[in-house]
């Protein structure tokens, strides 16, 4: 099992967005339109999280023109660029399939508020920033190394 985890760690994303069932999210999904690629944003409520490791997916549900639409996003999928949580939900179920039978105002999920939520949000933000900084540092290091190697090449030429 550990070997499977190792392989998945190699191929999957290093960091996954932190999402919970009941959250209202915006998913940035890269779609292909003919030759061009663009990011499509899918708004909705997370009604289920399933799978382990690299197979982890979220099911996002929203109502479009009175019709329920659900999409399943593999969190490790390269087309899923970002999942932003705009609102935490206060729910007591792991799967919110009961929302499928509801319409109108009853489809709302209560917002999860309080000190704990604020603390968690701050922690996630800090971790995101740290990861971004690390990535930037790595990119800079790569660039520096590239510059150095070209310098050397030039020196050799001289």
């Amino acid at each position, binding site marked *: 099992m550990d*070997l499977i985890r190792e392989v998945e760690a190699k191929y999957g994303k290093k960091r996954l967005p932190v999402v919970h069932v009941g959250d209202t999210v915006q998913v940035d999904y890269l779609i*292909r339109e003919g030759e061009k690629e663009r990011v499509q944003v899918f708004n909705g409520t997370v009604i289920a999280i399933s799978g382990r490791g*690299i197979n982890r997916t979220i099911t996002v549900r929203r109502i479009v023109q009175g019709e329920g639409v659900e999409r399943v996003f593999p969190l490790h999928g*390269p087309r899923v660029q970002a999942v932003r949580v705009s609102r935490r939900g206060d729910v007591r179920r792991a799967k919110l399939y009961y929302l499928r039978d509801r319409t109108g105002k009853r489809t709302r999920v209560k917002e999860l508020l309080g000190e704990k939520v604020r603390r968690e949000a701050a922690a996630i933000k800090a971790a995101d920033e740290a990861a971004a900084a690390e990535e930037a540092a790595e990119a800079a290091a790569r660039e520096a190394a590239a510059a150095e190697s070209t310098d050397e090449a030039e020196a050799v030429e001289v």
Partner: protein
Amino acid sequence: MALILGRKVGMTQIFAEDGTATGVTVLAVGPCVVCQVRKQDQDGYNAIQLGFEDVRDKRVTKPLLGHFKKADVAPKRFLREERLAEEPTHSVGDVIKADVFAAGDYVDVVGTSKGRGFSGTIKRHGFQRGPETHGSMNVRAPGSISTKRRGPLFKGKRMPGRYGVDRTTVKNLRVVDVDADKNLLLVAGSVPGPKNGFVQVQTARTAPVKAAS
């Protein structure tokens, strides 16, 4: 042609750039040691014998222990031969690692299928099922097995019985990735046998023609 021995680790999936996921089987293969070299003039055929996974002396039979001693290698749990068309270039003691294959190669994987016990004809031979309702009493039964005119049963008539634990080959699996440091091989698709089951991975006998692209 290349052969390597190993164990099945399990399955997972990996994503391509365009977002499509491929189901892959992770195999822990090698390092394998050449335990014997067979030559045409001596043995009547050319082959190398590979051994995989060290085992305590106590676990192997005395004749096998002598065989390993002769080759001066540690006793192995899993021994298989690879037939070669020409005289082998390997010598006893050579180590074969996962890098005999590269990503994009096609391989055949031989394993022992999962045991299913005493199974009926539907699972074992893919027979059709009868209707469950409308008075039918023939749901999973095999139906008629012969007629009066045909006489007694033909040999090989497909019937219920022990199913599984057979040598099974899956052909033409694509190698997705090779990790020689960790001795891992990733092949697209499924592989016979349970997790931890022994497998032989060999170059595909009838490799599919590569796409023109």
